[in-house]
């Protein structure tokens, strides 16, 4: 229901944009749109694990930043592109692990901790960015990537495998994103870990009484979140063929907005990977549309903030409406039963 509503909204938006802006409905724009959606989508996908588990992670932007720098430096060693990407994922997972351990083992508040680590990781990215100066000062330089096989991974399909069919204009990351979204849907819905993630998000006490190790599930959630941010960052750098340390700020907010719009509730226990996917498409479509209408970018900030609040209000009122409906139905049922008895 909720998903269909969002998808419907996306389609209406696309229709409106296509009719109103002449440069919206074309393959080039869709390829660009899908790339942006994929980047945000990967972040949201990782974040969905934390959010379904009842948590929040504000460090995604920081992880994107530091992994971008690490990947670009790593690529100078001349390693194959795929190794760089794997390296990025591992780095991201490591930073996620740090978050997870701080939150679950040291017992710190999640949003303050990840807010701090987010700033910390961004700073760490800067630290790695100053290559040879040896001094913690000076201005930042973008590092141009020269590693060919790495750069190819950020490009379109046609660049990788030659021109082939309808997919050729889309990016590798887009395809990977969709594959992973489907995979994560199954991880969340069909594995023991997924089950336990929902359990700790929906009713942690009951989960604990059933023998679920909450701290472990939480930590793994953060690791997955970090790994996805790392993956997204590795592809982004390859696509932009340069990394700089100002990358990544604000992405954590976009990712949260995407999840919330898609229907992953802030309290936890609701939504799934498809929600994250739809939410990212929604957000990116709107941002893209604004861009096509030549609406100044600052509107996008306003819109994102408003979207989070509106989506939360909508979900809350919808949930209370559904509950009332259910109670009324239960009342009627028990009333009938009482009459029979």
């Amino acid at each position, binding site marked *: 229901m909720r998903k269909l509503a969002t998808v419907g909204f996306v389609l209406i938006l696309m229709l409106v944009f296509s009719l109103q802006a002449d440069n919206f409905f074309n393959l080039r724009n869709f390829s660009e749109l899908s790339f942006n959606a994929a980047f945000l989508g990967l972040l949201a996908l990782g974040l969905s694990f934390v959010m379904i588990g009842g948590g929040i992670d504000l460090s995604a932007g920081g992880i994107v930043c530091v992994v971008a720098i690490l990947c670009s430096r790593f690529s100078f060693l001349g390693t194959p592109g795929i190794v760089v990407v794997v390296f990025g994922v591992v780095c991201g997972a490591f930073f996620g692990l740090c978050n997870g351990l701080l939150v679950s083992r040291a017992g710190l508040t999640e949003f303050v901790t990840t807010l701090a680590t987010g700033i910390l990781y961004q700073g760490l990215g800067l630290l790695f960015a100053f290559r040879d100066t040896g001094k913690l000062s000076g201005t930042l330089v973008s590092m141009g990537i020269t590693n060919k096989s790495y750069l190819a991974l950020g490009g379109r399909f046609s660049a990788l495998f030659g021109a082939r069919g309808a997919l050729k204009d889309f990016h590798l990351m887009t395809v990977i994103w969709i594959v992973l979204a489907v995979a994560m849907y199954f991880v969340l819905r*069909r*594995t*023991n*870990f*997924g*089950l*336990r993630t*929902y*359990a700790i*998000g*929906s*009713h942690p*006490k*009951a*989960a604990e*009484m*059933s*023998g*679920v190790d909450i701290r472990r599930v939480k930590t793994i959630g953060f690791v997955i979140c970090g790994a996805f941010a790392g993956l997204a960052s590795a592809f982004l750098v390859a696509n932009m063929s340069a990394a700089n340390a100002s990358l990544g700020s604000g992405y954590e907010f976009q990712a949260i907005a995407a999840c919330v719009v898609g229907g992953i509730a802030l309290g936890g*226990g*609701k939504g799934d990977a498809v929600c994250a996917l739809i939410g990212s498409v929604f957000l990116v479509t709107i941002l893209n549309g604004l861009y096509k209408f030549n609406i100044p970018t600052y509107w996008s900030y306003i819109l994102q903030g408003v979207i989070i609040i509106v989506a939360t209000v909508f979900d809350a009122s919808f949930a209370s409406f559904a509950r009332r409906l*259910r109670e009324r139905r*239960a009342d009627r*049922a*028990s009333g009938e*039963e*009482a009459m029979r*008895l």
Partner: protein
Amino acid sequence: MTALNLEKSAPLPSDVESRAGQTMLTAMGICKQFNGIAVLTDAGLDVRYGEVHALMGENGAGKSTIIKIITGVYQKDAGAIFIDGQPVEINSRQDARNCGISVIYQELSLVPALTVAENIFLGQEPGRYGVTARQEMRARVRALAERYGFQIDPDAVVDSLGMAQRQMVEILKALSVDARLIIMDEPTSSLSNAESERLFETIDALRRSDVAILYISHRLEEVYRLSDRLTVMRGGEVVGVLQKDEINPKTVTTMMIGREIHYADARTEKKLFEDNVLEVSHLSCGKLLRDVSFKAYGGEILGIGGLVGSGRTELVKCIYGALRRSGGSVTLGGAPVSKSIRKNIRAGFGFVPEDRRVEGFIPAQSIGRNIAIASHDRLSKAGFMNAAAENRWVEDAIKNYDIRPKDRNYRVANLSGGNQQKVVLGRWLAREPGVLLLDEPTVGVDVGVRAEVYEYIRYLASRGSIIIMVSSDLHELTRVPDRILVMYGGGFFHQFTRQTATQTAILLAASGEHPEEGEALV
């Protein structure tokens, strides 16, 4: 159509020989002390396969302690436990589970977002490589349900189920780990009548399948309806085991109460202040409180009895304004009582809640702040606190109500339970409220403090205040109030005066049986 249904003709498990009547669990000579205070002295139980064994006793009789020992939450100091005739040591919940003992918790332990099958197997999901074998899970739930005669949709989301159905899921969850003894602690306290009836059918089905059931309840009628045998506890001991044909209300309540204690310290003369009158008429609050009317006068201590869920807490909260009234009216001295707590406090109301830790005090704050918090209207001018007045006010309260340590800057979190209660009580007593509403004012408070609390209450009443006191402590109810109203099913059921009230009679009335003493209201 509901997700869970019961088939009347449950097939007995054919592969197992019937063990009905054999003893499942025997506990004997169980002793337990907390901080040198004996809670259990020589308690024992024996529960057989295929029987519903009821366990009854007043609050503090030691029921929950013995259950916690059997389920491994507490360790016993002395005594022995046998399962199927073999001696066992139960040192943890896991041990209890391994012995086939499961508890259905009062506060349900199900995850609302998951399905029935997922909930049943959460924490021990079947499947390889971490992939949940959902088909197997469903099949096992179906098999289990069939074996015990439930009809069940394993894919129903728990959030969409009613309370009775959730309890059935809990039972299935227990059965899924081969529970042979299921302990139910007040399972009907949050159920409607129709839902309770469903639960009883479930219990009947379990009994037919040779599961042993230990059933703890305060509700006599349920116990008569369900149980095959009944153990009564009082003061940490077992006072008797009744067979089915021996169970009747009079015997059970008499055994639970033991010797009636009559209190000599009771106030004999009382003066009513007719101008201070609280009149409640046709007060309702959703389904919890139905059409309640009464009058209380200044100088009177009114006791409200009844079981948990009978509407007694809702009654005082509704009067105070902490719960929204859905109908009826309340007046104090002729003037309507507001729905705003703030205005009511100014009009002379005070309220001591049941759970002082959650609703009463502010743990991180000092004694002084906790006492003054309800009296800002008297201790401030134009929004500014009058520090001198505040300190005097607090020091007086600490002295008058003997709060220890006598340090107004001491954190309330670090006080003993009795002193914490005195802080919450003192907050109101200092104001000399015209109406003081007390919900279980002496729960978790030691004997000495209890006597002090009664003294303060009586003093306040003698000065013309109306005291309304909710309590489950039968001794307290017969000892302190001038008049006792017993609630049952959201309304008043029976009324006693100080002279007619006995503990047995109150207990009977709270369980929905009109005793000979007092006056029936329904």
